[in-house]
C-alpha cells in the first residue's frame, strides 16, 4: 500500500486485512526472498507498522479493538512466513557459514613404497599359507652360499657381487647377504615340513646404477611338501602376479641355472602392453621378474629334510623391481632418494 491510502481515515479501507494476506501469499508464490518478505510485512516500515501507525487516527474505542486485530494479523503473518521452506539457492541462515569449505586439516603422512609393497606381498602369499620371516642381513658364508650347494671358490659365487665383512671369526667368513635365499636352510632347520616360508629382508650387492642399489630388498618363497610339481610353482607365481599386477597377467618359466635349484628357471611376466604377443618394449612377449626353481636335493640335505619324502620349490625376487614395474618408476635410485615429493605419493 502506498502512503496516500494510509492517510485515508476510513477504517474499512485502511484495515483491509484480507488484502494484506493475499498480497503476502502472492509474494510467497513469486518466491521472493524471505528477508525481503519479512521486512515488507514485519519490518520498521512494513505493513504491520503502517497499520499500527494508522491506529492513532482512530477513536479510542476503535483503537483497542483494531489494535488487537492487527496483533492477530501480525501473528498470522509470522506463522505463514515461518512455514516457508527456503529454496536451495536462497541465502543460508547465516552469511558466515559455508558448509562446503574444507574440514579441519588432518595431516596424513605416508608409508614408504617398499613397505607398502612388502605388505602387499605378505598379504597375497599369506592367503596361500605362507608365513612371514626375516632372516639375518649379516650372514655366515655357510648359509649364504655353502649350504646352498655353492662350495668355497665355486665360480657360481661370482654372480653375486658380495660384500665381505671383517670378522674376527676363525671359522668361516661373514658376508652381507646378497640374496634372501640364506633363509632357506635356516628355515628348514627350524621348521619340519610342510614349509611355506616367506623371507623378506634387506640384501646387499657391490653394484650401483639405474637398476641396482647397494642395499635393496628381496622376498623369498620356499615351499616344501610331498610330491610338489613344477605346475605348483607356476600356479603359486601366477596367483601372486594376478593379485599384484592384474588379472590379465601371468608368468612363464624358461630354463636357467642356479646351484641351489634343479630344475632352475627364469620367470617372466607377460608384457602389459602386448599381453604376451610381442612388441617393442618387451622380450619375446615378456619381462624378467626373477629366478625360481625346484629345491636342489643337496640344499634339502643341508636342511636335514628327507629327500625320499619331501621336495619343493623356491623363488627369490626384488621388492623394488616389482614396484618399479607396477608404478612405472624409471630409476631405482629414486626409491632411496628420499625426495618427499616421491615418498608422499604412496
Amino acid at each position, binding site marked *: 500500500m502506498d502512503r496516500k491510502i494510509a492517510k485515508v481515515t476510513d477504517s474499512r479501507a485502511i484495515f483491509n486485512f484480507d488484502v494484506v494476506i493475499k498480497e503476502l501469499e502472492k509474494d510467497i508464490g513469486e518466491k521472493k526472498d524471505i528477508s525481503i518478505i519479512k521486512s515488507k510485512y514485519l519490518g520498521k516500515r512494513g505493513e504491520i507498522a503502517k497499520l499500527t501507525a494508522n491506529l492513532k487516527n482512530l477513536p479510542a474505542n476503535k483503537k483497542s479493538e483494531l489494535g488487537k486485530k492487527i496483533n492477530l494479523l501480525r501473528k498470522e503473518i509470522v506463522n505463514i512466513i515461518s512455514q516457508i521452506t527456503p529454496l536451495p539457492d536462497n541465502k543460508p541462515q547465516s552469511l558466515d557459514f559455508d558448509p562446503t569449505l574444507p574440514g579441519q586439516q588432518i595431516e596424513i603422512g605416508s608409508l614408504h613404497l617398499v613397505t607398502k609393497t612388502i605388505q602387499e606381498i605378505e598379504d597375497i602369499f599369506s592367503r596361500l599359507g605362507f608365513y612371514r620371516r626375516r632372516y639375518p642381513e649379516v650372514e655366515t658364508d655357510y648359509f649364504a652360499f655353502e649350504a646352498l650347494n655353492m662350495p668355497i671358490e665355486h665360480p657360481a659365487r661370482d654372480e653375486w657381487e658380495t660384500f665381505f665383512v671383517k670378522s674376527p671369526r676363525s671359522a668361516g667368513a661373514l658376508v652381507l647377504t646378497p640374496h634372501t635365499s640364506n633363509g632357506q636352510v635356516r628355515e628348514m632347520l627350524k621348521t619340519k615340513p610342510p614349509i611355506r616360508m616367506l623371507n623378506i629382508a634387506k640384501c646387499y650387492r657391490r653394484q650401483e646404477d639405474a637398476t641396482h642399489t647397494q642395499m635393496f630388498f628381496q622376498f623369498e618363497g620356499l615351499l616344501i611338501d610331498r610330491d610338489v610339481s613344477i605346475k605348483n610353482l607356476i600356479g603359486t607365481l601366477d596367483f601372486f602376479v594376478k593379485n599384484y599386477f592384474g588379472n590379465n597377467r601371468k608368468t612363464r618359466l624358461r630354463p636357467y*641355472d642356479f646351484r641351489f635349484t634343479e630344475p632352475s628357471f627364469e620367470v617372466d611376466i607377460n608384457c602389459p602392453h602386448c599381453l604376451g604377443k610381442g612388441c617393442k618394449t618387451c622380450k619375446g612377449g615378456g619381462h624378467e621378474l626373477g629366478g625360481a626353481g625346484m629345491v636342489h636335493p643337496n640344499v634339502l640335505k643341508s636342511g636335514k629334510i628327507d629327500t625320499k619324502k619331501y621336495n619343493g620349490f623356491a623363488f627369490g625376487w626384488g621388492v623394488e623391481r616389482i614396484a618399479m614395474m607396477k608404478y612405472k618408476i624409471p630409476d631405482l635410485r629414486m626409491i632411496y632418494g628420499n625426495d618427499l615429493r616421491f615418498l608422499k605419493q604412496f
Partner: protein
Amino acid sequence: MNLLYPYSWIKKFLITDISANDFSKYVSLCGSSVERLKKDGDDYIFDTEITTNRWDLMSIRGFAKDANAILSYHGKKTSLNLLSPKTPALSKSTKLKIKAILDFKICPKFCAVIMDNIKVGESPAHIKNRLIKVGQRPLNSIIDVTNYIYHEFGQPMHAFDFDKIAKGANTAVMRTRSSKKGESLITLDGQKRALPEGSIIIDDTKTIYDLAGIMGGKNSAVDKNTKRIILFTQIYDKKAIRKTSLLLNHRTLAAQLFEKGIDPLNVLPALYRGIELVKKYSKGQIASNIYNIDHTNYKPRKTSLSHKKLITYLGQDLKPRATVKILESLGFKTIYNPIQKVYTCQVPSWRYDDINIEEDLIEEIIRIIGYFNLQPELVTKSPPQIIIDKRYSLENAIKYFLKFNGFSEAYTYSLVDKDQKEDGSAIYIKNPLTNDKKVLRNLSVLPNLISQVIQPNKGVFNQIKVFEMANIYLKTNKEMPLENLVLGVVAYNKTSKENYFYLKGILDAIFYYLKVYDYRYQESNSNSSWLKYFKEIFITLNTKKGVEIAVIGKLDTNLWGFQINLDTAFTLSGGISTKDKFNPINTHVPVIEDISFIVKPLIRYQNISNTLNSINLPPEIELIYKIKDRYVDKKLKNKEEVSYTFEFKYNSLKKQLSDKDVVKIRELIIRALEKGLKAKMRMKR
C-alpha cells in the same frame, strides 16, 4: 656369459628352414635365452646368454645340437649334420718331435702336432666373416684357425712357432708345470705379467713360453715369418686356470672355457679339424706324429631316473617311450626298465659334469617339453600349523600410527662412513664399493635421516616429519652379530615453536600402544655416544635394570627427534603377550577432586608419578591421576618452588565410595607426597 651365434654358421650343422625368429623363440623357451636378434645382411646373429653349467653350448656345434633336439620335439623339420673331421694322413717324416713332459694333474689331455711349410697370410673371406660375426678380430691365417676352432668346437686351440721353442733343434720340449713364486712372462700382447704361484705354465725346462690356458708367451708367438708351427689342443685343471685368470684379472675366452669344462672326446677331433684348415689356408703339412696323451680316465657315466619322480615333477602323465625319445635326442643312450620303472642313461661326454642326479635328467626332459606347456596348479595340501609371529603386525601398526599423524616413512642406507659409537662395536666391510658406505651403523638411524631426508628436502618443505624403522648392527662375542630393530623419528619445523612435547606425545603413545609402562627417565650421561648427535636437552628412557630403550631430544636448530629400540621394547611389551585379559568395567561413579601442592624444582613429574604409583592401596581401589597444571610465579620462583595441581579420580570395584573412604585415600596420597617429596599441600576442593 653372453655369446654371439650367426644363424648361417649354425645352419652348416643344423639343416632347417625355420625363420630366425622362430628359432630364437623355441631356443629361448627350451634352452638358452636369446636376448637379442641382430640382422646382419642376409644373416641373423643370436646374442644369447649361456649359463655356466652349459659350457657344451659355448660352441656353434654344441648350440646346433641342442637346438635340434628342441626343434624336432616341437615338430619343426630339422636334422643334424655334424661332420666328423677325418683322421689326417700320417706324416711321412718323423724327424721333428715334441718331447712332452706332462704333469697329468694339471694337464690331463694333450693333443699336438708339428706342421711345416707354413705360409702365414690372410684368411679367406668366409672365415674372416664368421669370426667378425662372433666378435673376434681376424689376425692371420694361423691365429684365425685357432679362434675358428674355438668357436666351432668349443675347444681352445693354440699355435706355437716351433722354431722359437726348438731353437734350431729337431725336438721341441713342452713341459707343463705349476709356476713357483716370483716367476713372470711377457704374454703375446706385450704385457709383462708376474705369475701367481700355482699357475699352469709351459716351458722348455729353462724358459717359460706359455701361460697355459690363458694366453701364449710373446717368445713363442706365431708371426708373419713363422715357417713351422705346433698346433695344440688340451684340457687343463679347471681350478688352477680360474684362480690364475682371476688373480691376473685377465679373463680371456680360453680361460673362461677351460675353467668351466671341455669335452674330452672333442679334443682330438678339434685338432684334426685345425690341421685341415691350416693345410687349406696356410699350405701347412703334417711334419710329425700326432700326439694324443690322455690321462683323463674318461669313462662314460651312467645315471638313472625313476619314472615316478619324473611324473611328480611334471605334474602330469608322460609315456616312457616319449621320455626315452627326448633323452636320446639329447645324446643320452637310454634304456627303460618297465618293471622297476627306472630309466638308465649314459651321459654324453659333453655333459659329463653337469648330469649327476635324477633332477638333472628331469630338467633335460621337461625343458624340452617346454615349461610354457604346463598349466598352473596351486598346492592343495594343508598349510603348515605354524604360530604366526605377531611382531610384524605390531611394526605395521606403529607405522600406520605415524602415517596418520602426518609422518612420512623413509629408508636410508644401513652403511655409513664411520663407527657411530667410536667404541669398536661397529662391523666393517672388507670390500666397500664407496668410501661413504663402509661400516654398518651401530647406534642410530637419526644421522642418516637428517642428512639424507631432512637436509635435501628443506628447500621445498618448511615442515618435515619423517621416520625410519630399520636395524642397527653390533659386534658380539658370539658367532653372529646383533641386529637390533630401532625406530627413529625426526621433526623439522622452519618456523618452529617448541616441538619437544609434540614428539614426546608421539613417543608416549607408541609405548602406551605397546603396553610398555615400566620405564624411567634419565638425564643425559656425559659419556653417552648420543651426545655426538643431539645438541641439547635430552633424556633417555631406561628399563628398571638400566637398559636404554629410547632417547629423545633436540638434534639441531628447529630439529627434534627420538629413537626407540623396538626389539628391547617388544621384549617388555605387554602388547605381544597372549595373556591379555578383559578388565571388568567399574559401574560405580568415581569421586573426582583436585589436589595442589608445592615442591622444589628438583622434583620432576616422573618423581611425583613414581611416588603416587607406589602408594599401597587395597586391590579393589582404583586411583587415576592426571596432571592439570604446573605453575611457577614470581613469588614461588623467589622461594625456589613449583606448584602442581593434579586431578585425582577415586573409585572402588566393590562399592560406591563414601566420603569417609575418600578421606582415607586422600590421606594416603598427602602422606606419600609430603613424606616422599617433601611437598607442601595447597588448597584442595
